[in-house]
């Protein structure tokens, strides 16, 4: 098992005729992901790398059995793409697009909640269940099928840490980048819930950063549900000055909440093993996973 994506995942790529969409559709396909369709309104009937392109997501669902959408549509048009995917019958939407206005995401999340459709992102690298499927832009070479679940708000920092975990021989069950924006579809708590019930996942690594309260919420969830699997964490942005945006719109400290210190304390109080630097994550992992 793994979570969110596996061999049954059938992907429709929204924005497949764009530069990023076409490039990553091809990469996903090469990895073995079942990329069954693409969508660009007005380009229906054409093909991208052998993948049939449709005018609407509904057609991709009806004709090719797509159950997951991966959105590369530019920020200006992303909300409409999310609405469309929400109405199409797919059960999972992974939005890679960065720079979507916050109020658009408020509306998009609200729309999908009502329809029971899960959203990952936006502004995220996507999901990989090594050996099974990847949806998004994660560079697969740093991942190998294994026992550790990873959930992160960032991209390259996750690749860095995943590569250590893979090198050490543990590998990953599923790794998810949930995105760095203030309003995102799926949070740490939601991922912990999924990893909890996944027999393949033996430990969970949370890669957090300053801003918001998702790490604190995750800590509370671990305590309240008496989470049984070992959880490891790291918080990026300890040295960030308050009130400054650090690239991710989400990584901003305001009014004394969401600081690295508060998050680290919350993690430690919940029994989460906290790494000071990225290389220490795998050291801590060795302590909790024997063999």
């Amino acid at each position: 098992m793994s979570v969110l994506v596996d061999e049954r995942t059938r992907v429709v790529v929204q924005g497949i005729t764009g530069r990023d969409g076409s490039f990553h559709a091809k990469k996903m396909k090469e990895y073995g992901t079942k990329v069954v369709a693409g969508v660009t309104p007005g380009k229906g009937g054409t093909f991208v790398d052998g993948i049939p392109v449709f005018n609407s997501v509904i057609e991709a669902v009806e004709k090719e059995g797509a159950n997951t959408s991966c959105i590369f549509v530019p920020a200006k048009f992303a909300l409409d793409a999310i609405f469309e995917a929400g109405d199409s019958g797919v059960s999972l939407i992974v939005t890679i697009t960065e720079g979507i206005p916050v109020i658009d995401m408020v509306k998009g999340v609200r729309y999908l909640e009502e329809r029971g459709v899960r959203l990952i992102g936006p502004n995220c690298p996507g999901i990989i269940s090594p050996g099974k499927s990847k949806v998004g832009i994660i560079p697969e070479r740093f991942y190998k099928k294994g026992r550790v679940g990873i959930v992160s708000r960032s991209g390259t920092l996750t690749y860095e840490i995943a590569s250590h975990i893979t090198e050490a021989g543990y590998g990953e069950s599923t790794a998810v980048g949930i995105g760095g924006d203030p309003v995102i579809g799926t949070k740490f708590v939601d991922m912990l819930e999924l990893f909890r019930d996944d027999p393949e996942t033996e430990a969970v690594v949370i890669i957090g950063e300053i801003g918001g309260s998702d790490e604190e919420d995750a800590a509370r969830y671990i305590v309240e549900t008496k989470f049984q699997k070992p959880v490891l964490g790291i918080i990026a942005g300890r040295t960030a000055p308050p009130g400054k945006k650090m690239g991710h719109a989400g990584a901003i400290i305001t009014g004394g909440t969401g600081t690295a210190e508060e998050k680290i304390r919350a993690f430690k109080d919940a029994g989460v093993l906290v790494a000071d630097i990225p290389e220490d994550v795998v050291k801590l992992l060795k302590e909790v996973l024997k063999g």
Partner: protein
Amino acid sequence: MKIHEYQAREFFIRYGIPTPVADVAKNKDEVYEIAKKIGKRVVIKAQVQVGGRGKAGGVKLANNPDEAREIGEKILNMEIKGIKVKRVLVMEAVDILKEFYIGIIVDRRTKRPVIMVSPAGGVDIEEVAKKTPEKIYKLTIDPLYGVLQHQARNLAQRLFDNVDFNFIIRTAEIIMRLYKLFIETDASIAEINPFVLTKNGELLAIDSKINFDDNALFRHPEYENLKDLTEDEKIEEDAKKAGLSFIKLSGNIGCVVNGAGLAMATMDVIKYFGGEPANFLDVGGSSNPEKVKNAMNILLKDKNVKSIWFNIFGGITRCDDIAKGLVEAMKGIEIKIPIVVRITGTNEELAKEIIKDSKLPIIFANTMSEGAKMAIKSIGGSNERSR
């Protein structure tokens, strides 16, 4: 994106939120003219985009136009938290009976807009939020319907005890207008603090604050004219135009990193081993050599930077692109500071060859810890943390 109070006030007026008579002045004579026109006591308020200006002496009362000119001149010569005061807002002084707080933001936890009101408005609202959070009332808004009339009335009732219901209705209307402004202008915060009841029974927004969502600026090209950037912000803005996310810090180790999370972690690792990062710099996910060149140029201009550390984890980013940019940027300029490179991932070998072939004086590191230690050591710092 931040704007000044006087600019936010214009938005308030456009949305029908009542504010006292006021105008903005750039020099003492303009202050005099405005005060004369208002014809009564005025408050002169420094226009700087930082908090705590009142406590810094940037908000003063003047009894007549002559006094206004004198005080205006004083404030226009001030620097508040390192920012020069270029303008003042000259506002009609009102007799305040009660001060309230009304603010709107998007709450990350509920993923919806939340309206906050408090009967304890004024300069100490952050203290109120910390010490007596029960005095701040929050209401989460369903974005599909916006704030409903009865919701706005219920919020308004939290502010007053024992007033004519007419005040509740007027306040509710102002709350609804502020929400409309928040949504339509793509604000990330819209705040009235203080919102006041005067002795004459007026309800007025004494201060106006709006920040805009940077991601939504494409919908509002006119906001470009509202920008008033400090020198540091200008450098950050220029970097942004070059596809870089840059923030200047106070240390001496410059860093060039791909990805925001890794860039923050890089700063943390420098600090962990006893160094001080000079900046946050993210060259982005799919970077090209040109971006790296621009990044180098920004860092080399900063006199505080004593060494530069490239920490690159090539995923989507190809390491050879970064290496090309680095070699290109160093061509023809004399580099007087040590450059440490830690580069791993996609096309790593190719990147290392490019750098070696260039014969540039570059120090290679294999891991993040090693990179940090080398960058610190290269400027004579001691870094051997016992671990």
